[in-house]
């Protein structure tokens, strides 16, 4: 970053800065809770795991959630045990608690996150914009085996990506890795065929429509449940494929959006642009 200073000075300065930062961090770590870890029972995550936010809200409204010294009484919130495959109509039906936080309890963050990726893709296109476009020629054309192989692999990868984001509320994964998996499948197609290029207009339409779908799901919540990004569907039984309300819908939108976006980014990077 610093351009004119001599090499040695720069290195000493860098070691100095890094040293100060790391010393600061280790001094901070010694003051962390026991074992350098957050105790889950002392954080709001406790309610997300117990799917108990409604109970806590009732206590908050009655004024018994905080004690006199403003300490939250998180362990006093009444709790109903959850059994996998049996409990139904919970306030949030996802078996994967991380998913329920990402999409439901802190859904607004995720809307912003989708936007960040969208803006990054748009920024790549703005920066790499050029008049002439040509697909680079490979020095050696890929063989027939490569061509057929990547196409077969693509269909399998596509299916796997869709599986990952549809089962986001049950298994690890979700919209973002699912979309990234699909995009890496499309990356494989670039390797397999001379002069391959996905339909750019199609990707744009896909991306826009899935993004709009996400915001419209949010606005539906505003209309139906009087709150932006609120769940307006029944939550079903925990562990079922058709459970967790709108989480699956949102993850499908996110998966399609991320997949098409990342494909568009790789496409913009691979295709050469020259300004004349």
């Amino acid at each position, binding site marked *: 970053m610093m351009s004119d200073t001599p090499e040695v000075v720069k290195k000493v300065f860098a070691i100095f800065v890094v040293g100060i930062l790391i010393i600061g961090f280790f001094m901070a770590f010694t003051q962390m809770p026991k074992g350098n870890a957050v105790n889950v029972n002392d954080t709001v995550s406790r309610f997300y795991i117990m799917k108990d936010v409604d109970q806590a809200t009732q206590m908050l409204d009655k004024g018994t959630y905080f004690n006199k010294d403003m300490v939250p009484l998180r362990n006093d919130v009444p709790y109903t045990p959850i059994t996998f495959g049996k409990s139904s109509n919970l306030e949030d039906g996802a078996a994967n608690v991380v998913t329920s936080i990402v999409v439901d309890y802190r859904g607004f963050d995720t809307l912003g996150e989708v936007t960040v990726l969208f803006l990054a893709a748009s920024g790549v296109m703005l920066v790499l914009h050029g008049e002439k476009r040509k697909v680079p020629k490979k020095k050696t054309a890929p063989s027939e085996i490569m061509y057929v192989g990547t196409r077969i692999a693509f269909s399998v990868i596509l299916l796997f990506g869709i599986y990952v984001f549809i089962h986001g509320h049950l298994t690890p*994964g*979700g919209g973002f890795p699912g979309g*990234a998996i699909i*995009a*890496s499948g499309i990356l494989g197609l670039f390797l397999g065929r001379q002069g391959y290029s996905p339909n750019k207009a199609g990707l744009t339409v896909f991306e826009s429509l899935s993004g709009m779908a996400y915001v419209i799901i949010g606005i539906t919540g505003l209309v139906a449940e009087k709150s932006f990004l609120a769940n307006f569907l029944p939550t079903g039984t925990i562990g079922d494929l058709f459970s967790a309300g709108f989480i699956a819908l949102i993850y499908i939108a996110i998966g399609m959006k991320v997949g098409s976006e990342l494909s568009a980014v*790789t496409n913009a*990077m691979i295709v050469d642009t020259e300004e004349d």
Partner: protein
Amino acid sequence: MITLFSTLLVILIVAGGFVAVFSKKLLSSVISMGLVSLGVSGLFFFLQAPDVAITEAAIGAGLSTAIFIIAMKKIQKGGTNDDE
């Protein structure tokens, strides 16, 4: 057992970081960055965060490195030369 394995993994990622600092070739720097990401995603698995592990493996280690190498290919000298 898992403790030993994850400790080795930590040592591996830190070593990968040092390779990224000191290697002369840009390409080996980028590959070791990908390895660091992969090692970190393995650690996430031991740290009971399978969601994060999958995402880091697919996005951080996979696509990020791929985009890096594509960008380096566009710059013809990228793979062979450094600091030019």
